[in-house]
């Protein structure tokens, strides 16, 4: 079990927010901006031939002698796609701060929220430029245990080729929805570009960018030979206090630039450290950023 019942109860109080997604397939728990056939009145419009006469407002027609069609709020489900970076760089950190474990819990939390909201939840594990594992769409709380089983069976591995993986995800026909990418973004790719095809089809996207504490402030010094656990690439460095400060500046600049690019492309962006308890992140930070409510 990735988290306990108490946390699950708290999560069920939340709902994923997708303000621009409008194409629900079945009626769900959320209100759509499309005018439909629910009972909640929304507006009037002129009658056009072919309209359902049952929706004609006869009272207005009697008073004004002009036919108007009544429009109602339509409640529909939301397609939620959680894309998890499963590269080897995610296999980093100790204990509760292990990035992949942290990301799995985040997936499970968001998935639980989606299922509890009646949304159509889909999941994909991005590895080595493709989609290595996935499930969904699934709906309803009855799917929780299945989701947990699938998530607990996932393992990190392979390289990070985010844009290629996102492209593969985008070429598969899917109804528009909320796409949440969870990744450390330790790749030369610009993920907001990879998300662009999805955005163009009416989806809404958010990036949850997680980094471990020693990636933010490496506890290193001296003459070192850095070995990349994902690619095996080596980098020699004579690390002193000044260079460490430069590294921290570089990380801040990278995060700032990524946030700026995401904002420019209409992609939500939240960066956080795995030192922060994941449930606090979900219950506080994601609500504050508007991804949840």
């Amino acid at each position, binding site marked *: 079990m990735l988290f306990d019942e108490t946390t699950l109860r708290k999560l069920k109080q939340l709902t994923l927010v997708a303000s621009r997604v409008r194409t629900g397939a079945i009626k769900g728990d959320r209100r759509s901006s499309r005018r439909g056939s629910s009972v909640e009145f929304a507006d009037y419009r002129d009658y056009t031939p072919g309209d359902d006469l049952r929706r004609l407002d006869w009272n207005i027609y009697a008073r004004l002698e002009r036919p108007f069609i009544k429009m109602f709020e339509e409640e529909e489900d939301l397609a939620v796609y959680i894309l998890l970076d499963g590269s080897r760089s995610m296999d980093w950190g100790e204990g509760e701060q292990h990035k992949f474990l942290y990301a799995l819990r985040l997936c499970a939390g968001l998935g639980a929220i989606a299922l509890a909201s009646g949304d159509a939840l889909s999941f994909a594990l991005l590895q080595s430029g493709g989609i290595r594992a996935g499930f969904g769409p699934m709906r309803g709380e009855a799917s929780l245990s299945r989701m947990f089983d699938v998530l607990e069976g996932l393992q990190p591995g392979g390289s990070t080729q985010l844009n290629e993986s996102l492209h593969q995800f985008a070429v598969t026909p899917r109804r528009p929805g909320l796409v949440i990418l969870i990744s450390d973004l330790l790749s030369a790719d610009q993920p907001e570009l990879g998300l662009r095809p999805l955005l163009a089809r009416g989806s809404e996207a958010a990036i949850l960018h997680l980094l*471990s504490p020693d990636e933010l402030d490496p506890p290193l010094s001296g003459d070192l030979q*850095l*070995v990349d656990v994902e690619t095996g690439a080596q980098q020699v*460095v004579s690390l002193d*206090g*000044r260079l*460490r400060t430069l*590294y921290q500046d570089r*990380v801040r600049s990278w995060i700032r630039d990524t946030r700026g690019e995401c904002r420019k492309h209409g992609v939500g962006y939240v960066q956080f450290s795995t030192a922060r308890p994941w449930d606090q992140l979900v219950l506080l930070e994601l609500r504050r950023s508007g991804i949840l409510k």
Partner: protein
Amino acid sequence: MTFLSPSALWLLAAALPIIVLYMLKMRRKPVRVSSTLLWTQLLLDREANAPWQKLRRNLLLLLQLLILAALVLAAARPAIRTPVVASGSVIGLLDASASMNAVDGNRSRFDEARQAVASLIDGMPSGSSMTLILVGTTPKALAASESDKNALRAALAGATSTQGSADWQAAFALAAGAAHGSQGSTTVIVSDGGLPDSGLPALPGDVRYVPVGNLDNNIAITALALRPTAGAPELFAEVTNYSQADRTVLLSFYLGEQLLTAYQLKLAPREHKGLTLDQLPGASGVYKARISDPHGGALDALSLDDTAFAVYQASSARRVLLISKGNLFLEQLLASLPGIKPFKALANQAGSVQIPAEPFDLYVLDGVYEDGLTRGNLLMIDPPANPLFVVGEPFQQMSSVKVNPSDLTRYVDWGNIHVMQAESVKPPDWADVLVQADGGPLVFAGETLGRRIAAVTFDLRQSDLPLQVAYPILFSNLINYLVPPTPFDATQSLRPGGSLSIVPPSGIKQIAIVSPSGQAVSYTPGVGKLVYDGTAELGYYAVNFIANDGSTTADYFAVNLFDPSESDIRPRPGIQVGRTIINPTASRQVGERELWQWPAAVGLVLLLVEWQASHRKPLRLPSLRRKGSPSPT
């Protein structure tokens, strides 16, 4: 600034192999990271991967390069040009006499003089050499033609002032010897000017004078003497004011540590006053005179001559027993010698005599020998057969008589002495023959088994010796040897460095002399007198005679300054060498003061820091990140 060994700067090239070796041996610790993406971008931006960047922040390499630079700088011998008194072949005469102990301000004149010589050494240009002579009671060369400044400094550091007068004649002889053979030597005299006013010979080359001291404030005890009288001894003391001001002093007299009396004296400038004390206690002991300020303050600049000592030895008559069948010559002689209390025991015709039970200092056996005399010193005249030496047949061969030079034959003229017949004696191993005739020794003396024994091998009545001047002289010498009046004469005090003749009493196995500072020196007495010259300190010395039976008796003698040329400490404007008045010399030559010690010291400190740093592994540089700095999240 100049470099005396600029070629040493080439050693800086050693930095290159250090850097290369450092780069070659640089071992990097492999560390796994989640991604090198950001590091690579960062290092590309900063070019931090360049070789020089790798080295830039390395503390150990930096320290090693700094150490090399400091040591090379020291090896290059940096120097600054300074004015000096002399250069070339320099002979330094450093005054170490008693007056140099005067304190002008907060340091002694000797320290000031040593500092002046140190400056002279520091400023010596390369190629110069110095002979350094310490002018004390006995001048000695501390360094001879030495060009190594470290050796000169070490020699100077070992120099100490003395408490006696300086022997400038001997020092000038040494300086002249050092100057001989060197071209253009310069003699530098560093002194307070207390040189003899005349009589010093001219020195070859230039002579320069570096004066030290500026005060004339000194009052001295210039005489202290004891004179035995018929009653109690009299003590004479003289105090002299060498300053240019009226002074009042308190003159105190002590016997041992017991204060006898004190007087207040008023002294005009350059005035001396004498004082005689009588009615002193008649006991032997050490008398001390001390001058002090009546108000308890500091008296003067030179304290060495503020105290003087005098030793009184109460004389005691030596008991001499004459055992004879009757000899008027000997009886009259013993009665006339001073310090002798004679006794007489008549022997019968068979030669036997009743020896008194009480001991005597000396037994004079005239033609007899008593077997019961197993102790005490003996003077044997015309000896019969005895166990001490072999007596043979009489002889008359006196054609040539030889007097061997000795303290015992001093002033003895044997030329007019005739001996008709003497006993043939084979001189024993323990004895020295003093007068030798053809047929055998006429007079011999020596010491055996703790007894002193002298023998005259002929009957005085068969010679004309008793009628000659040599008779009382010879017998006085013999008796003073056999029973010395006192081991040494302590009535007159010694000057520092003077020698004292000690005639050890018989039966002494060891003599221990303790100086005023408590340093003891032991001697084993041999034949004849002992000459002691370790009198460099002022004060009184204890001479302890340790007898064979372990008993100890002590006598004392005093060493006092009593030298007006040392007590008169006023600075002299010039000194006379030969016929020339030498005035104080200004620094008129250019020398070089070396500064290599400073970079060497810095190099040593850096070496210690590098050692400390290299033993702290891994080397952790301090983090520049401030506590509480904002996190990227």
